[in-house]
């Protein structure tokens, strides 16, 4: 069995994130890393393998992104994935949901042809765009059951059951492998790469694919053919500094309630 875990390389959320002149996200001039929410997906892939000791299970980490995005795959290999795939092509830059999901789906199909794709694992959202749509779109494109936003995952044989927090309820979802599964940050802390893991990662197979390797051409993806177009981006003006009072002998509560009244909240 082979698990494909999709990992995205994103700008560091705690640093300055900005847009380029063509309104695409600056992914090259800023510090990037494996999206923290995709670490949970890698973790669940590794746990899936560990829980099913004795079975022959491999984990392939897949990313689509610029040159530096290979770091996301490397991190996944250090954590314990067995092999990596980096899809990189200038023509992909600026892809929207439709373009990105197309490239990912084609790449997953190629992995499947080479070594199988019985479980496609994703994070719940990227930490930059936070769309939370790509996993559902992969399920649509690959014709696999969609089992998304899992906080608890159980599997036996080819059956998988998950717990999903919905708007007004918690649901248990069941499906039969192969599936597309996305996991939330409630699914369990991700491990840190060990020193041994970091050394071992250097020897693990890592392939680089371009669009033509996937049977796609530049007219099918990227900014120029995107189905959506960004027309403007504006930095939000910093909030004007508010009034800060220090509570002394109960003065804070009085000032707080006066403020609420002045704004007509009471």
């Amino acid at each position: 069995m082979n698990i494909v875990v999709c990992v995205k390389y994103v700008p560091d959320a705690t640093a300055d994130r900005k847009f380029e002149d063509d309104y695409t996200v600056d992914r090259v001039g800023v510090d990037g890393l494996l999206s923290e929410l995709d670490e949970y997906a890698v973790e669940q892939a590794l746990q899936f393998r560990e829980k099913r000791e004795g079975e022959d299970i491999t984990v392939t980490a897949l990313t689509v992104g610029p040159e530096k995005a290979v770091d996301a795959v490397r991190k996944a290999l250090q954590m314990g994935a067995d092999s990596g795939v980096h899809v990189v092509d200038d023509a992909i830059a600026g892809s929207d949901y439709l373009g990105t999901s197309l490239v990912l789906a084609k790449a997953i199909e190629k992995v499947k042809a080479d070594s199988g794709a019985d479980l496609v694992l994703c994070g719940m959202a990227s930490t930059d765009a936070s769309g939370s749509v790509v996993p559902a779109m992969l399920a649509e494109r690959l014709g696999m059951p969609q089992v998304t936003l899992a906080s608890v995952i159980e599997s036996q044989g080819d059956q998988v059951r998950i717990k999903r927090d919905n708007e007004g309820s918690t649901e248990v979802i069941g499906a039969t492998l192969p599936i597309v599964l996305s996991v939330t940050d409630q699914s369990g802390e991700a491990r840190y790469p060990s020193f041994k893991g970091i050394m071992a990662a250097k020897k693990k197979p890592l392939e680089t694919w371009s669009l033509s390797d996937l049977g796609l051409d530049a007219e099918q993806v990227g900014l120029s053919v995107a189905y959506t177009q960004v027309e403007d981006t504006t930095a939000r003006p910093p909030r004007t500094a508010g009034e800060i009072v220090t509570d002394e002998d109960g003065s804070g509560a009085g000032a707080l309630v006066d403020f609420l009244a002045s704004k007509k909240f009471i």
Partner: protein
Amino acid sequence: MSEVLVVIDHADGEVKKPTFELLTIARRLGEPSAVFFGSPEQGDAVAEKVKKYGAAKVYVVDDAQIKGYLVAPKAEALQQLAEKTSPAAILLPSTFENKEVAGRLAIKLGSGLITDAVDVADDGTTTQSVFAGNYTVQAKVTHGTPIITVKPNSAAPEEAEGAGTVEAFAATVSDAAKTAQIVATQPRQSTGRPELTEAAIVVSGGRGTGGNFEPVEGFADSLGAAVGASRAAVDSGWMPHAFQVGQTGKTVSPQLYVANGISGAIQHRAGMQTSKTIIAVNKDPEAPIFELVDFGVVGDLHTVLPAATEKVKERKG
């Protein structure tokens, strides 16, 4: 005028406020047709509600073949409805589930998708609030039928009489869409407080509560507010995940957000930074949350909040 499909947000036939916001927005783009996934018996009652906000038609899609499976059947039904009506746009309330429905629908229709819009102009230009609220982005769908998911509190609902003609729509759900089965559903218990994403006022607590949410809840109740929590409070098991505000929880955009014992991490800000007015109570004057506030109290929430609660009650009489 072209139809604009608006997917109704409801809990067992009880129409929720974001629906009225979406209908108000839809009127800028064309003639709103509301889409109700639910029990046909509830169709007429739902139509009464949505016609007050301008719904000319109400498509009732019997969800007997839909509700037992995750996401895929709804996308199929909407595809069939879109093919029948050739709408000018399709609007959905921005929930996790609806975003997934919209994603699959975008592929089926070959249409562009914009998620988490906080505004839609009459020419279809959307506004999104991105990077934890630090940027706003103007964008437009350029291919196919615009599919747009819209966040709660993105417009003030405005009434307008619509015909509200009920039309049953028989969707065909393929076997391929029935592969992820909902085997059990446990409804969350109602707290009796307003819904987090819809509330005009949200009062949240973080690690600084030390696990005692009573001061936070008491203050929330005095203001008629919803209660929220930081991930630290959720991870500690003090509050259920459904209350989490932030990147991996709910995004709220209320008139007033009160953060108590919350430091203001970027992932928390992502869920509340677009609130109109922000207040914080925190004992650390250096807490980053104070960079955002309109008003802040440096103090212990365990003394400030109960005292403030009493004062609010006095004023309200």
